[in-house]
């Protein structure tokens, strides 16, 4: 099922919480809504599901306008953060509740429940009360309940945030695989960028009710369209600094504080240069050495296991960089940072829009 949102706006009382959201989802596509809490991603999801009404704008499933359809007529399945299982029913009853409401026969319900439960690996639990299940098992029941009616669209509202870290990684790949095998269109709301990056075909990054970007995970990461996307996606976050750009002899240079000036390669040179510019560079694109580059003090070292995060400082300005363990760097060391100028980003400081990607 294709989904498209056209200029969706939502007001709660008089506060605008969504501003003209436009979004197209292809059939079978897995789209993640990513953003900090309160950004409007769950509200958007609830508008798609029919729980909330859009203040204005159109929601289309395939080519049908569904604005006025109630949730049950939208052919959707939804998985909630709290699972929202019917605690007074057992697993079988939870799974088949929607079928029962459609007055399906006992045989159909049994067959569907068996298939779904087996797919979710909960076949042996059908008779249990849901209160007696572990978190992971409840999660599977919730997923099964959404899948059993063979919906055209699957909606996920932060479904993994109540699981422990190990189970979360496991369920991540499992959900992705099931969605891929069934070929069902899916919308997945999360504030966890790793979930979004690893599961989604495309990611819609939202902030304060505005859609900041809608693109593939690699484009979101490598070609951020706004300052917000650049800083929200990527871990550790991108370093941002105020700079000025100047052109000389057909080449463009960036002036850093301390009078240093670096040449920008042509593919990263903005066409239009506003007065105030912010430059962004990801920690992995900074190389710590002792010989070449800009001089910095090592302020703090945070081991994360795979990499060490190293925070360097010069004249009150801090950079986050990465180093592989065994690097021999200690706090208060004097180091030099080399910039990979082929990977820098530039943003208009006033509009916070990228100067490189539109």
């Amino acid at each position, binding site marked *: 099922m294709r989904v498209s949102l056209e200029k969706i706006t939502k007001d*709660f*009382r008089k506060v605008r919480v969504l501003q003209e959201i436009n979004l197209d989802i292809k059939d079978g596509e897995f789209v993640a809504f990513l953003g900090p809490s309160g950004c409007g991603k769950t509200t958007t999801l609830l508008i798609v599901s*029919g*729980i*909330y*009404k859009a203040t204005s704008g159109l929601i289309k499933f395939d080519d049908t306008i569904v604005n*006025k*359809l*109630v*949730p*049950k*007529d939208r052919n959707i399945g939804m998985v909630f953060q709290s699972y929202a299982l019917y605690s*007074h*029913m*057992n697993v079988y*009853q939870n799974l088949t*509740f929607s079928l*029962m409401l459609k007055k399906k026969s006992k045989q159909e319900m049994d067959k569907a429940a068996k298939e779904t439960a087996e797919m979710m690996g909960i076949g042996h639990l059908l008779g249990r009360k849901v209160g007696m299940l572990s978190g992971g098992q409840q999660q599977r029941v919730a997923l099964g309940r959404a899948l059993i009616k063979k919906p055209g669209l699957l909606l996920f509202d932060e479904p993994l945030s109540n699981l422990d870290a190990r189970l979360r990684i496991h369920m991540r790949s499992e959900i992705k695989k099931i969605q891929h095998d069934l070929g069902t269109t899916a919308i997945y709301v999360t504030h966890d960028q790793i979930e979004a990056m690893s599961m989604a075909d495309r990611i819609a990054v939202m902030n304060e009710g505005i859609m900041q970007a809608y693109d593939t995970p690699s484009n979101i990461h490598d070609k951020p369209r706004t300052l917000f996307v650049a800083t929200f996606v990527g871990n550790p976050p991108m370093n941002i600094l105020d700079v000025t750009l100047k052109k000389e002899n057909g080449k463009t240079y960036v002036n850093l504080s301390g009078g240093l000036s670096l040449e920008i390669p042509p593919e990263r040179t903005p066409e239009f240069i506003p007065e105030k510019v912010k430059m962004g560079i990801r920690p992995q694109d900074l190389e710590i050495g002792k010989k070449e580059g800009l001089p910095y003090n090592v302020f703090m070292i945070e081991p994360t296991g795979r990499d060490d995060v190293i925070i360097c400082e010069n004249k009150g300005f801090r950079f986050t960089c990465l180093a592989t363990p065994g690097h021999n760097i200690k706090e208060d060391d004097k180091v030099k940072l080399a910039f990979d100028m082929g990977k820098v980003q530039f943003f208009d400081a006033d509009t916070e829009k990228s100067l490189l990607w539109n």
Partner: protein
Amino acid sequence: MGFKARHSSSTAGNPVQKPNLGGGFNLRPGKNSLGNKYDWLLFMGPAMLLVAVFFITPVIIVFIISFTNMSSLTGFSNWSWIGFENWIKIFTHPQSGQHVEVTIIYVFFTLILFNVGLALVLAILTTHIPKAAGFAFRALWLVPRITPVVVYIMMWRYLMADSPYGIFNELIFRPLGFETSEMVAAYPYIAIILVNGFIGASFGMIIFTSAIESISKDIMNSSLVDGANILQRIKYIIIPQIKWPLMFVTTFQTLSLITSFEQIMLLTDGAYGTEVWSLWAYHKGLNNYFGQFQWGFGMALAGILVIISIVFCILYLKFFKFSDMIQEPKIETL
């Protein structure tokens, strides 16, 4: 499993269960099936009907009939409008002063000594003895409230009866050589205050107990570390911390006391000068020994109580911020 049964026991016999009244969700998709805008009526209907018939209508009736001379002499057909005559009569009636006086005495002393005072003492004491004992005492004090009022009044009548029956007289006064008496008749004010107070104390007790128990343990412990004894703790920690529950109970119980007469009616039926205002209204308007009802005048007497009640209710709404308890619904399809 419950969800196969079409009617669960708690909803049996309700007329709105007919499925065709189920509202917009049964409409065909594609048409406007955003849920019937009036489905809420289905849920609210019965409550609204009862409130309209048994709260709003009576309030209106009180004020309408208070402007008539309707009584058991005029019947329901021969009455006439008499303007403010009943209301003026309230101020000129020779007994008004006495009824106001006994009402004030009764409300004031029951409130201060029992509904707030004893309630606070009970709450503080039962939270300072072992949990099980505290619970048992609170349960004991709830017994008067849940006991059928007729049984409760009978118990008090016997407690205060004259020798050789009465328990107080037999156990306390006669052994000590005091003169015995029928105590309800001898000390009518004390009797009605005691009888109502022993019921009333439990309301404040429960509310104060939960308020005291919700005072943070850290505050209590730090006051112990600072060396406060129990009286200091009551004065400096407990009372200030439960200021709002105290005010709530005081105002709420004031109104309850002003308008309640059930116990007094059963104990003295207004004899010995204990006819409080609300009982006076009840006697005049609805129930008296001679079967002579002055509905118009009774309604005016009740009207005074209705006005007092409305004023109190508005004060609650203003001061206790009930509107904070209202949350916005988070489903919009209906």
